[in-house]
């Protein structure tokens, strides 16, 4: 733990404490985002001054007991301004929002950024913090559809979606209630209740052909359900049946890094996936060419061979 980290934490908690009253340690620790023991250690380090000359009047007087803390001072009654590094971190997040949001929402993002810039400490080295990090979440799909879905989700409005699933030959219209947006491995997905399919579904943004926000509102399912779906369900195919794939030693290490698992003695890797969509299974395996082979189910193997024979003509 560095002195700098400790000072930053102390400067953050004092404005919440310095009214001369006793404050419960647990509550202050929660607000400061640190654990109770660390809070007590931080404050004790300021209050216990064994090396200070007798008669010295502290600028900051702190009383700490196991349950409560109190501070008397005329200093640090406001938090310190934002540092440039903190501003850059927030701006990186605002930059990601700009890519997700409808153009009508962009002015508020710009204004927020401008206001935050007025809350920083001005130092000559500030310029050196800028541009050290960039992030991009969107990769494929129409940003306008993402913006519509994002706005509808927050407004709790239904969306008419024209969608063509990975294996479908034609697109179809459906009405969905967007519950969450998820970015995973370079793609955006919307987790939604599909009124047409009467169940929770995951739609991939780059397969959305049109998205229109409707006037009709919806009541979201319990957040826990969506969180579970987002956390547990792999963003590939539908659950139910499985397919087993062996990856050659040439590419197995990359697959293991991404998905886990143990290499076989010959360096190959066998993984099992949920499979509800044969088209997805075919595409998933063929992207690796001869370095991946479906072991099961047999009908998927046959389908791959059939497609390869047609391609060989």
């Amino acid at each position, binding site marked *: 733990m560095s002195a700098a980290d400790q000072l930053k934490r102390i400067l953050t908690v004092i404005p919440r404490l310095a009214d001369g009253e006793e404050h419960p340690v647990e509550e202050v620790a929660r607000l400061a985002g640190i654990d109770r023991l660390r809070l007590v250690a931080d404050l004790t380090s300021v209050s216990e*001054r064994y090396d200070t000359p007798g008669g010295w009047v502290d600028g900051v007087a702190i009383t700490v007991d196991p349950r409560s803390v109190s501070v008397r001072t005329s200093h640090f009654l406001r938090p310190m301004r934002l540092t440039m590094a903190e501003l850059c971190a927030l701006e990186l997040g605002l930059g990601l929002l700009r890519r997700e949001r409808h153009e009508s929402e962009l002015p508020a993002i710009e204004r927020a950024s401008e206001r935050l810039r007025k809350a920083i400490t001005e130092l000559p080295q500030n310029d050196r913090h800028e541009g050290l990090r960039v992030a991009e979440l969107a990769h494929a799909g129409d940003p306008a559809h993402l913006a519509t879905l994002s706005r509808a989700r927050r407004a709790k409005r239904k969306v008419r979606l024209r969608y063509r699933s990975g294996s479908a030959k034609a697109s179809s219209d459906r009405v969905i209630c967007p519950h969450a947006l998820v970015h995973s491995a370079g793609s955006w997905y919307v987790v939604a209740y599909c009124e047409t399919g009467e169940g929770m579904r995951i739609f991939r943004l780059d397969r959305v052909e049109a998205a229109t926000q409707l006037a009709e509102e919806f009541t979201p399912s319990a957040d826990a359900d969506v969180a579970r779906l987002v956390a547990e369900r792999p963003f590939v195919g539908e659950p139910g049946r499985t397919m087993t794939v062996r990856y050659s030693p040439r590419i197995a290490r990359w697959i293991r890094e991404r998905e886990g698992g143990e290499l076989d003695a010959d360096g190959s890797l066998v993984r099992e996936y949920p499979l509800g969509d044969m088209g997805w299974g075919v595409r998933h395996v063929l992207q690796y060419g001869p370095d991946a082979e479906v072991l099961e189910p047999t009908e998927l193997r046959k389908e791959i061979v059939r497609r390869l024979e047609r391609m060989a003509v």
Partner: protein
Amino acid sequence: MTTSRTTQKVQRWIDLLTTLLSHNFPLTFLDLARGVPQYLADGSVDRGEPSPTLKRMFERDKLELRSMGVPIETIGEEGEEDTSYRLRPGDFYLPYLAVASQRGTLKPKKVDRHGYRSLAELTFDADELVAVAEGAARARQLGDPVLRADVDAAVRKLAVDLPLGAASAGDATYVRQPRSSGDPATFEALSDALFRQKRVTFDYRSMGRDETARRAAEPYGLFFINGHWYLVGHDTERDALRNFRVSRMGAVKVNAAREGTPDYSIPEGFSLREHARSRNAWELGDDQPLEAIVEVRGTSGAARAAAELGEPVEGNPDRRCYEVRRRDVFARWLLSFAGELVPVAPPALVEEFRAQVAATRARYVSGARA
């Protein structure tokens, strides 16, 4: 009982800050030192001749506080006898943050004491507040612990006045993290090296050769794309620009020599944003780009989305043109569409594609293990 060095430093910094903030005029080091007990310990201040050790301690304190963002102002030349220092409350303390809504403006309680009355006031409207809260949440989700710590520190300051927790309550957007996102110590070392422009050496696991080797680079930036953080920098051994996936780096050492001096400068024309722009794997590489013409024979959602990545071919609505640097990778990508996307030119690409089809078919027909 003695006090640890870290605690001593924190106490000294607090004394230094309170002394500076207590005065609305600049202070020389001698004046300042009288407010900081640790600066008085060796008696040199009382003698009117601060010792070199004490001066070095002060220089170090000033440097470290500034690196934390504390705007200590120097009046005069650094290190001279009559140089003075100032920290204005308005430059140090966060402005008062108010929230405007249709029902009026919610203002924070102001501190009725000297030094606080003149602080500026910034008013956020409800939409701006939501943007700040959700932007913070999005940055936190990227898996970089240094970035997250900066976001958390900012939010804790802002939350003294602003109801940021409530503002972000409606954000149901998730960024799924990869299985391995990198060691916090790696991010910390790289962030430090980037800011100070210092060379780094590190262990790097090469997936192609399945071996770990010591590498050296001059870091230009960190970028997050497709769920992973990468360091881009000048690989000093290969004399080339290289990307390193942070999760494959370890034992990062930042050059400790000439601490306060940058080791290199980032080339004028380098743009991290442009470098980090999303690209498909077949667009990356050092080969000369070739124009690949692909016929779109299928109408599935996957095929249509893939077709959108190419450019139209005049006079032939079923064909798309792609700029390809890695022919083999592009051929495999086309293979994944199982006949819905088929290359028609150039001949070398067509041959590559056919060879991939034949080799993959042989895997199933001959029964040889993948």
